[in-house]
């Protein structure tokens, strides 16, 4: 299979010695839907900005559709549809004028109304885009990205600002585009968005690739923990929590009011329930689920998906450095994190 996107040894250092990307290697095959995952500030947008020649790499090579974005940017972007991160629409232009601009720019013959219909904002086509909601702006720029049936769609956080229904519509469009033969490369910090459509994913953390695989394989490689939610008839005492944690096969216990969340081997469920009842606490209800993607994600990135790194470090650098402000001092090797203990778990 040939590569739609090929990244080798990509490093980007912003002024102020902010290391946004460090030695990133990545191959995206033609025709696949590729998810690019990572917490805010991991370097996803910087990577995408290099693919589009918005940002110049410090070192490393990048090839998209066999072309070098730095040298053949115009020819390349003729075949790419882009939904960038942190974009701003032209406030005084209507939705229709935006899409028409994309059509004129790509010199294609395309039905503007059909595109606006496809992203479901045709009824707002003649209103100024400055008055659109965040979700509508997102849809508008997606419509611009779809102009000219691009060979690759590069979508940076396409579901930002959309309600679950809107996010589903976007996923539907992504599937349709892939069915047409397009390669789709999209980034997200929300795993559920990615799991629903992606063939493969890459997890980026603090400027480094920490995993590339199918979601199934990633899940299998992490662990087989089940997560069990138990509704009690009273708020549990510390003794109850201790008793549950003492059960062999239990890795973590969290309490929230009268609800217990227990991470454990699937085989020890009854023993957990027994332990609770042995403490004289009644069990109202319980449910089990597989390792959530959130857990999976945290296992690889070892911190919460809420980003705590962005603001201060990047304040004195160029604007886009805010995407991935990692100073050398704070960089740590995320792959060394302890897979057995998600950082969220507390008692």
């Amino acid at each position, binding site marked *: 299979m040939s590569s739609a996107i090929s990244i080798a040894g990509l490093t980007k250092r912003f002024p102020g010695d902010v290391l946004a990307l460090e030695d990133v290697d990545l191959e995206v095959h033609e025709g696949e839907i590729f998810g690019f995952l990572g917490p805010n500030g991991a370097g996803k947008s910087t990577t995408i900005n290099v693919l589009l020649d918005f940002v110049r790499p410090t070192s490393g090579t990048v090839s998209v559709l066999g072309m070098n974005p730095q040298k053949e940017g115009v020819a390349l972007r003729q075949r790419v549809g*882009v939904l*960038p991160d942190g974009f701003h629409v032209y406030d005084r232009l209507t939705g229709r004028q935006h899409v028409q601009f994309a059509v004129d720019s790509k010199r294609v013959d395309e039905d503007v109304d059909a595109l606006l219909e496809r992203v479901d904002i045709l009824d707002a086509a003649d209103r100024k885009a400055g008055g659109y909601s965040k979700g509508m702006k997102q849809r508008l720029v997606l419509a611009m990205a779809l102009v000219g049936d691009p060979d690759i769609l590069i979508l940076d956080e396409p579901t930002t600002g959309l309600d679950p229904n809107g996010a589903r519509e976007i996923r539907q469009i992504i599937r349709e585009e892939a069915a047409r033969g397009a390669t789709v490369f999209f980034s997200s910090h929300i795993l559920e968005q990615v799991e629903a459509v992606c063939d493969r994913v890459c997890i980026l953390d603090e400027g480094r690739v920490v995993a590339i695989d199918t979601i199934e394989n990633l899940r299998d490689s992490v662990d087989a923990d089940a997560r069990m939610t138990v509704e009690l008839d009273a708020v549990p005492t510390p003794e109850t929590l201790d008793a549950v944690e003492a059960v062999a096969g239990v890795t973590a216990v969290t309490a929230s009011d009268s609800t217990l969340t227990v991470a454990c081997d699937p085989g020890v469920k009854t023993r957990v329930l027994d332990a609770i009842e042995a403490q004289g606490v009644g069990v109202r209800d319980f449910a089990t689920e597989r390792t959530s993607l959130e857990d999976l994600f945290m296992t690889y990135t070892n911190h919460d998906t809420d980003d705590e790194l962005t603001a201060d470090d990047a304040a004195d650098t160029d604007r886009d450095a805010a995407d991935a402000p990692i100073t050398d001092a704070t960089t740590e090797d995320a792959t060394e994190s302890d897979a057995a203990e998600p950082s969220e778990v507390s008692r």
Partner: protein
Amino acid sequence: MSVTAIARKDFQDARGSRALWLLTALFVLFAAFMVWAFAEFEAGGVGADPDLAALGFFDFLAASAALFVSITALVVAYKAVAGERDTGSAKLLLGLPHSRRDVVIGKVFGRSLTMAIPVLLGFGLAFGLAFWLLGAVNLVDYALFVGVTVLFAFAYVSLMVAISASVSTTSRASALAFGAFVVLELVWSLVATGAVYVANGFALPATVAQYPEWYFGLVSFVPSAAYQSAVAAVVDATSSGGLAGSDAIYLEPWFGFVWLAVWAIVPLALAYGKFTQADL
């Protein structure tokens, strides 16, 4: 094609701006006022001013239009590129198959077109007034004068777009644009005089006639002076744009066109060089 698409988009964008229509209204009033003022004082009214009367009609218009056009160009163009980088709409623009060169050139044409509206409308209406107040105005001369004014607007817009393309934020663009305006329009003659003062051994020659030739070259180098020279070159006016008794080529009135071309091209080329290397 790419340039056209950007210029058209930019023009559409500007057309929706209230500021542009306000500017157009102001320019119409301004042009009308200038024509009236000339007619009033030139025609030997109560407050007839011999100095004003000595100036030709077009010199009079050009001298005042220079300031108005330069301010307008600053307002219209200083955000052209930096504003898009600041807000992030540059990512929509450059996510499409446009080169950065096309962006810069498209911006110059889009904003120049935006500038041309108030200039053409203002002087168009003023022509009617001039005809009514002054009796006979040579239409060809008038058209040439307006044409040169549009050219001047183009050169100034190009300079402002260049400034805009050389920085990454709107605030830096506005500071730089305003600084350039102050230096070129307000303090330039002082700079030139200062140069003479230094070159002359920290003393000024007794009369202006004794100033060195290059002083007049320096003074005529700035865009507004170049514009006035160019106007003098095309309009069949009695007033002189050149310096009597000098054969320096850069003091010929037509050399104003050369300076305008320099202002339109050189800053833009330098700014493009910087913009093309920049991270958005």
